[in-house]
């Protein structure tokens, strides 16, 4: 099962049909991961470069394991965006890496749209592991797989995404994907952390978390970066936690079987209380595991060895 487009930069580079095919492949990969031998070397002789201009624990390590479990040779390049501004341009890095003949380049970059530059200068297929405040398609795929496995589908599901929508690439990918699959999405943030004209994204907009999560089937909490408070985006962590944090009391407003999700890393006691993060409705670690499966599925398909 191929993916038609060369690169996965925006989640909309995938068709709905392709998204379901990726889910199917990811579930196969979960079978592999459940076995004694996690090596499934269908990418022997292929190579993957993980090019990370921003820090990452989950995304980078899961892409690395995904490539290695599938038998590909994986190289990790970690750099900081400050060295980019002083040193080599992204275009030159792209031209250099292309001559190493990778089959797939996975990149995370702090600037929105950076993947357009990379993709236009390399023959390798490009997978976006997060660009600025634009997109994080593999996070959305793992979020959607997690929901799919618990709920069996998306049609009519009420899903609230709560937190720093303005700066969130996860929200921008999720809102596109979840709506494409039929869910009913509400975005909730303090008004200073809601992007301009967010209503035109198709989702409902709310500044009131209690309203946003009422009768929700799924709540996706976003990480609030504590530096945002220092730059004046909201008055205090205390107030944020009280009005936009998920606690056990507030969670009762949602449906009893509501899933609690978070892309991590979590700020315990800020956007989510420990009892909710560790509670029975939370599937946060499951998301991490699904992230590995999704990335294995994508590399299997996009690495050129798909059955």
């Amino acid at each position, binding site marked *: 099962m191929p993916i038609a487009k060369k690169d996965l930069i925006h989640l909309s580079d995938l068709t709905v049909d392709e998204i379901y095919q990726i889910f199917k492949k990811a579930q196969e990969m979960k079978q592999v991961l459940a076995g004694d031998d996690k090596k499934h070397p269908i990418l022997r002789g292929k190579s993957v470069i993980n090019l990370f201009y921003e820090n990452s624990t989950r995304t980078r390590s899961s892409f690395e394991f995904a490539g290695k479990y599938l038998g590909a040779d994986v190289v990790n390049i970690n750099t900081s965006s400050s060295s980019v501004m002083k040193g080599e341009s992204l275009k030159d890095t792209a031209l250099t890496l292309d001559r190493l003949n990778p089959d797939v380049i996975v990149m995370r970059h702090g600037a929105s749209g950076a993947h357009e530059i990379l993709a236009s200068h390399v023959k390798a297929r490009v997978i976006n592991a997060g660009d600025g405040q634009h997109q994080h398609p593999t996070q959305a795929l793992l979020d959607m797989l997690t929901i799919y496995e618990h709920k069996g589908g998306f049609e009519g599901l009420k899903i609230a995404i709560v937190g720093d929508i303005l700066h969130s690439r996860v929200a921008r990918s999720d809102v596109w994907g979840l709506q494409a699959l039929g869910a009913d999405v509400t975005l909730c943030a303090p008004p200073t952390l809601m992007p*301009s004209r967010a209503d035109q994204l198709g989702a409902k907009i709310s500044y009131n978390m209690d309203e946003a999560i009422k009768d929700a089937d799924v709540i996706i909490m976003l990480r609030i970066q504590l530096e945002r408070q220092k730059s004046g985006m909201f008055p205090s962590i205390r107030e944020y936690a009280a009005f936009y944090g998920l606690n056990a009391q507030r969670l009762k407003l949602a449906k009893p079987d509501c899933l609690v999700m978070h892309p991590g890393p979590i700020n315990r006691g800020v956007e989510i209380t420990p009892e909710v993060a560790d509670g029975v409705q939370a599937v946060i670690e499951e998301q991490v595991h699904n992230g590995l499966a999704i990335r294995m599925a994508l590399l299997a398909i996009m690495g050129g060895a798909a059955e």
Partner: protein
Amino acid sequence: MILLKNGHVVDPAQNLNGKADILIEGQTIKAVGENLQAEGAQVIDLEGKVVMPGFIDMHVHLREPGREDKETVLTGTQAAIHGGFTSIACMPNTTPVADNETVVESVLYKAMKANLADVYPIACITKGQKGEELTEMLLLNRAGAIAFSDDGRTVQHSGVMRRAMDYSKALNGLLISHCEDEDLLGGGVMNEGIVSTELGLGGIPNEVEDLIIARDLMLAKLTGCRIHIAHVSTKGGVELIKKAKEEGVKVTAEATPHHLCLTEEAVRGYDTNTKVNPPLRREEDRTVLFQALKDGIIDCVATDHAPHTIQDKDVEYAFAANGISGLETAAPLIWTNFVATGQMTMEQMVTAMCKRPAEILGIEKGTLEAGRMADIVVLNPDAEKAVDRNEFYSKGKNTPFHGTVLKGWPELVVKGGRIVLNQGALC
């Protein structure tokens, strides 16, 4: 002597819009009329062509001194002639900035050596463009500065701006304001709206511009100073200027070809050649801006020609330099999008690109009346050609119009009685 025969001459200053001949003797226009004859003159047949006064661009960045890798006075004036502009005013944000007579004189000297378009340097309002102390406006004016601007670095303090306006009245000076509230700007890199939200790029709301337009109009009213608002891009800015003009404020304003022709939608795909300040706005702004140009609320077209190197633009959108190389596409853009489509008359084009800029700058240009300097541009109204940035004389290849098919290209330019552009190429 040169005799331009059978062209369609457009010159609203003398109510001319039809077939006429132009006789040039020495540096000046000797006669304009039907069936002119002149023994021994070089006769150029312009049947089917459109003849206009040489265009005047009151907003150009020549980059010299300091950033000769982006542009020089020579390449900038070559680009001007190639685009049909025979007079240009250049902004002071060079390195060092034009806050002293030496830089102004140096630009004038280089323009004289280039001997192409006339160059009118604009000097800084404040020393070092720092927005604190006023420059020596009277000395700068005596050295040749035609106006004052801290272009790109809006004077943020209202008290300093008021003082600049008051002081400049000593020479009936013109202040040109690039209107931008730096605090509200924040980290914005494109227009704020659904496109910035979808692309994950920092947004710049219209109010960044509108706030300072409102302030400067109020200060102009208070002081009686002449103020010119640079590159207006917003609907709100147009409304503020309209109201101020009705109240008798001495305000004029310009719009760029890119704000008249493009919207924020052009940013999709992250082409950094669309990154410009003020940013490309919404369609509703663009429509209002164009109507205002036709109505005369916006007085003129100016390019904000901002040449950059390839490496300044070949980077991530957020890191790319602001600006569009505009001199060599302005006339065909206006012709193709507005005149050829019947949305704008040829007289309106000449008013916006010749007559009004001359009046605002106070220069004896912008018309083809007998006795004036023979600065003339001839356009081919029909021949279509795709924009090819590699054909630019400007060092700045940064255009979002590369590949766009346009007509109305300048074919012939006469500057001070001398043919400097022939068949679209510099002589």
